[in-house]
C-alpha cells in the first residue's frame, strides 16, 4: 500500500545521504591529502607516500604514538574489568546503601566537561605527590572510560534472558560460577565493544591527557595538537589516516564478530 512505500521516502533518503556525507567528507578529504605529494595542502602534487615515510622517521611522533598505544591498552583493559564489575553490580545487587551515589558517579563522567575531570585528577595527583607520567594518564583514562564500558554492558545485561543463568544454577553452578559459565559467554560482545570504545576514547583524548601527563610522556593527541596550533602540516594527515584505518578495521571486525555471536544467542531460544 502507499503507506508502506512511503515509509522510506525521498526526504528520508536525502536526509540520510546528506548526514552521512557531512560526517565523512572531512575524513575523506584528509585521507586523500595524506597522499598528496605537494607540501602545500592547497596544491595537488600527485600521489605519494612521503608523509608516511616522514612520520615513521619522526622519533618524537613515534614515541608519542607508542605511549598513546600503551596507555590505551592499559586503560581499556582496566576499564573493561572495572566497568563490567560495575554493570554486574548495578544489575544484580538490588538496592544497597550508596547505590544512588555509585550510579551517579558512574554516569557523570560521560557528560562532564573534560576540563573539570582533568583538572580535578591533576590536583589529586599533586596532593598525593604522585609522579606524573604514563601511570597517571592511564589512571585518568581508566576512570573516564570505565563509565562507558559500564553503560554498554549494563544495557546488554538488562536485555538478557535470565533463564539461562537459572538453568546453570539448576544444573549445579553456584551463582558466581553460573555467571561465568552462562552469562559471560552471552555478554562478551558487549564487553568487547566496551573495550574497543575505551581504547578509542583513550587514544583520542587530549584534554585529560594534557592535565595529567608529565614531562616526557606526551601522548599522540598532545603532539598533534601542538603541531596543529602552528598550522596545517601534511605529516599530520598521514598520521590521522593511519589512525582512521586502524580503528575502522577494528570496528568492522568487532561488528562482524558481535553479529555472529548475537545471532547465535538470539536464535537459541524460541520466540
Amino acid at each position, binding site marked *: 500500500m502507499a503507506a508502506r512505500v512511503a515509509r522510506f521516502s525521498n526526504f528520508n533518503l536525502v536526509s540520510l545521504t546528506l548526514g552521512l556525507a557531512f560526517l565523512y567528507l572531512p575524513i575523506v578529504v584528509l585521507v586523500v591529502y595524506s597522499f598528496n605529494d605537494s607540501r602545500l595542502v592547497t596544491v595537488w602534487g600527485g600521489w605519494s607516500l612521503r608523509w608516511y615515510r616522514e612520520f615513521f622517521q619522526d622519533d618524537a611522533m613515534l614515541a608519542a604514538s607508542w605511549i598513546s598505544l600503551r596507555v590505551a591498552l592499559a586503560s581499556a583493559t582496566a576499564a573493561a574489568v572495572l566497568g563490567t564489575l560495575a554493570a554486574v553490580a548495578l544489575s544484580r545487587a538490588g538496592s544497597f546503601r550508596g547505590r544512588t551515589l555509585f550510579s551517579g558517579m558512574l554516569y557523570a563522567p560521560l557528560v562532564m566537561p573534560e576540563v573539570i575531570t582533568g583538572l580535578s585528577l591533576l590536583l589529586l595527583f599533586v596532593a598525593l605527590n604522585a609522579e606524573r607520567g604514563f601511570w597517571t594518564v592511564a589512571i585518568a583514562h581508566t576512570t573516564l572510560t570505565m563509565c562507558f564500558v559500564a553503560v554498554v554492558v549494563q544495557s546488554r545485561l538488562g536485555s538478557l534472558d535470565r533463564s539461562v543463568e537459572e538453568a546453570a544454577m539448576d544444573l549445579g553452578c553456584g551463582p558466581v560460577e553460573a555467571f561465568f559459565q552462562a552469562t559471560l559467554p552471552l555478554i562478551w560482545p558487549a564487553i568487547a565493544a566496551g573495550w574497543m570504545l575505551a581504547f578509542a576514547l583513550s587514544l583520542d583524548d587530549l584534554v585529560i591527557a594534557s592535565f595529567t601527563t608529565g614531562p616526557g610522556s606526551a601522548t599522540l593527541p598532545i603532539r598533534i595538537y601542538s603541531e596543529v596550533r602552528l598550522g596545517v602540516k601534511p605529516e599530520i594527515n598521514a598520521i590521522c589516516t593511519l589512525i*582512521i584505518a586502524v580503528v575502522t578495521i577494528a570496528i568492522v571486525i568487532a561488528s562482524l564478530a558481535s553479529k555472529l555471536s548475537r545471532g547465535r544467542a538470539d536464535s537459541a531460544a524460541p520466540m
Partner: protein
Amino acid sequence: MSARQIFTRPARIAVIAPYLWMGLFFLVPFGFVMKISLSQSAIALPPYTPVFDLAAGWDALAAAFAELSLDNFRLLISDNLYVLSYLRSLTVAAVSTAILLVIGYPVAYAMARLPRGWQPLAMMLVIVPFWTSFLIRVYAWINILQHDGLLNKVLLWLHLVSAPVVWLSTDTAMYLGIVYSYLPFMVLPLYATLAKLPHALGEAAADLGCSPRQAFWLVTFPLSLPGIGAGVLLCFIPIVGEFVIPDLLAGSGSQMIGQTLWLEFFTNRDWPVASAIALILLAVLLLPLTIYERVQLRQLEGGR
C-alpha cells in the same frame, strides 16, 4: 520474578572495586578542587598556597586553614571577562544543541525507517567517525576551511563568491566544528528511541485518518521525546565546557569557559582561579546534570 536474592551477595562484592576506584579518582578530587579554589596562587611547587602538610602539626594546619579565602570567587563574579565567558559558553551550547537537533532528527528518523537489515550498517556508518579521533576530525575541518582550502576552492569554482572567504577563526567555523563532532551524540539516542517505536502505531494513525505529516507530529514526535531529551543532555552539558574546538576554530574574541580555564591553568599558572572556574562551571551545570542522572537511572535501571 528473578532469583534476586541469590545473586545479591556476589554482586555486592563485585561493586567494591569500582566503587573504591570511582570514589578515589572521581569524588575525592572534587574535594581538592574545592580546597585549591580557596587558595592563592604562588610561585612555588605546587603553585598555590597554603599547602596542607599533615605532618606539620595541628597549629600549622589551623594556620593554613585560616589562609583560605573566597577571593577567587569574588574575582570571578565581579570581573566581566569571566561572566561573559560563562554566558558565551551557555549560549554556544544552547545554539549548537538546537542546530544538532534540527540536523540530527531527520538523520535518525531516516535511519529508523530503513529496512531492518540495513539498520545495523547505518548505525555503524554513524559510529565509525565518532571512534576515529575527535581531534583528527576537527583538524580535518581546518584543512577544508583554510583560506585556500577545499571549501573556498569549490565556492570559487561554482562562482558563488568572487574572492576567498575567511572561514577559520570565526564563530561559524566553531559551530560547524561543534555540530560535526557531536552529531553522533544526538543521532544515536534519537535513533535508539525511534527504532523501538512499533510500526503498527503509524499504521494505526493512518488507519484512523491521519496524513503522514499529522501522524508524525501527533504520534511519532511525542513518543520520541525521551530520545530528544537524552540527545539534548548528552550534547549540551559537554559543549558548555568545550575547549579544543573553540580553541582551534573560533576567533580570538570572547572565549568559552573551557578556554578560559585552560588559559588560567596552563598559561597564567593560576591553579586556584582555574579551580574556582571549574567549581562554578559545575554549579552552573548542576541542574542539567541532575536531570541527566535521573533520565539515565530511569532508562538503564527502570523496573529494578
